[in-house]
């Protein structure tokens, strides 16, 4: 009962806020509604018993992606009115794509219910461990290769970001630790003997 109430509340908020994402005039509001959608979706995942996915959704999408969106929206001068101008001319194609996607979803939903004859259920994790624990048990053992390769993918992303954006400009002030450490007292301070009553002049 409680779960059903929670589901309908979360689902309603998710649908409304998702609609508000595209309906809001102010792009900052759009992004904030997007974050609300993510949170409610995370709540739905918790209801399904997939608390690890819920955590991921909050950490990755809200914590990183949506905040990045927010930065982009607030810091770059993107003219959203201009972006929306072509909307009507793209409308037929967009509607067609949307119709195809909807047809696919319906098709798959029917195929799914037809294949099993019963509504889909969440697979139980074995041994009564939680989701996060179950993933932790296999991530570094069974899926070691995938884990390491994913690390290499991230390395490529890092190299790419540096290669494409780092520029060595002359005259940039940056910290040189060995120079700081190697500095001597004689270079750093100079003692002046000032006579009483006179300035440094």
């Amino acid at each position, binding site marked *: 009962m409680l779960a059903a109430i929670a589901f309908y509340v979360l689902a309603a908020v998710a649908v409304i806020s998702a609609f508000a994402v595209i309906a809001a005039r102010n792009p900052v509001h759009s992004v904030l509604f997007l974050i609300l959608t993510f949170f409610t979706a995370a709540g739905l995942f918790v209801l399904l018993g997939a608390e690890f996915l819920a955590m991921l959704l909050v950490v990755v999408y809200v914590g990183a992606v949506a905040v990045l969106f927010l930065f982009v929206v607030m810091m770059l001068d993107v003219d959203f009115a201009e972006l929306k101008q072509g909307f009507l001319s793209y409308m037929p194609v967009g509607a067609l794509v949307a119709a195809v996607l909807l047809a*696919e979803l319906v*098709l*798959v939903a029917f*195929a*799914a219910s*037809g*294949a099993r004859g019963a509504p889909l259920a969440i697979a139980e994790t074995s041994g009564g461990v939680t989701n996060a624990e179950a993933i932790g048990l296999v991530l570094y*053992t*069974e*899926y*070691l*290769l*995938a884990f390491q*390769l*994913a690390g*290499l*993918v991230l*390395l*490529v*992303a890092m*190299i*790419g970001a*540096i*290669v*494409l*954006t780092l520029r060595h400009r002359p005259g940039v002030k940056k910290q040189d630790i060995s120079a700081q450490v190697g500095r001597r007292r004689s270079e750093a301070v100079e003692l002046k003997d000032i006579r009483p009553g006179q300035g440094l002049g």
Partner: protein
Amino acid sequence: MSPLQDLIASGPHLLPEAVLVVFALGALFFGALLGADRWFGLTSTAGVAALVAAGALAIARQPVAPVDVFLGAMVIDGVSAFAKALIAFAAAATLFLGAVHFNATRERRFEFPILVCLAVLGMFVMVSAQDLITLYIGVELQSLSAYVLAAWRRDDAFSSEAGLKYFVLSAISSGLLLFGASFVYGFTGSIDFDVIAAAVSEGAGGVGLVFGLVLMLCALAFKMSAAPFHMWTPDVYEGAPTPVTAFFAAAPKVAAVTLMARVLYEPFAGLEAQWQQVIAALAAISMVWGAFGALLQTNLKRLMAYSSIANMGFALMGLAAGLEQGPASALIYLALYVPANIGIFALILAMRRDGAPAETVADLAGLAQKRPWMAALFTMLLFSIAGVPPFAGFIGKLLVFQASVDAGLVWLAVLGGVAAVVAAAYYLRLLASIWFQPPAAALQPAGNANLITATFAAALTFPILVVALGSIERWAEAAVRMWF
């Protein structure tokens, strides 16, 4: 077997991959530490050596029977050995050309060989993939390196555009791949190719599974630039620096075709009736679109992009035939096509005037009078790609046509024949321009590295590969036999 025992047992089988990882991480470490742009030449030489060593190791350590490593995440077998050798040697040749080129143009950034090697590592993972996660990560590792390489000349608007376009479109296709893979997982209950194959043969899934398969095939067709998923190819090929284009046109194609063959003939062998139409349609559209699209191109790199679309069509024609000759002929086709392609790009790289690239068809005019050797090499390589006997490319086309006819896809073979004739028209147009037109403004002398590579590639197209065809054929056929 416990994961630790498995790791210890798997290690020796992954030596080619290990060589690449050690090179990439080592070069990155020393490069960052020492500011190794000064040692670009040394890093690149080490990269070429690592690639050649990886290819040689892949051949030398090819197991007699397929070996599952990392608890069945990857497999080392004949197909993976064949593809890895081809990928590694193609990438080594293009890295060599690229290093010489960037050294001459003073764009010496030591990350270039590192990214090439990491891309090749991704391709190695692709051709060995044995479950959906490994497949996806391999594709991503290769693509992500490729985006950066496409945008390598970051101050050049064309190169940046190429990188951005490639990234956006390819990210969509990666999304399709994941979407399809999630369907396959949902309807079969496993990511493991063997389990999927068992579920497919029991008739699991139905429409949903076919839907997932088609989505995955679309994404893979995008990665190999088969029409109608080829839109990015001409722009990326034109915008990316020419050595990078040469790289794109060789090694990733082999990886994508091999991966497609593995997906079709391992987990989805039971759905042949479904995917055969899809692959045949992709092949037909690619051949026709590649042939006609190239007719109006004036830029050599764009022209080669359409040529590669058409050639991917021919390779797919081999895959569409569900018989043993099918995937074998596709692998042989690639082995015969890739050297000629690298040779042509070596010559395009050599075409420079006053330090700027001269890459249009008009720049080829009268090349025979000024540089007869280059003209002769162009002629041999273009004849091979067009499929003129007795060059290697002709044999490759003959084999895929044969496989297609044997599988009962006569219409596809006829269409391929027509497309090959149309394609021959624009190759001949290039040759007519080279031999019979009044010379264009003089090009600067071609670098030795390019000429040596192109000469070697031409020697491969005729006579080396033609003579060695028997052993290549035996190798490829033995490799794919496990699928039947």
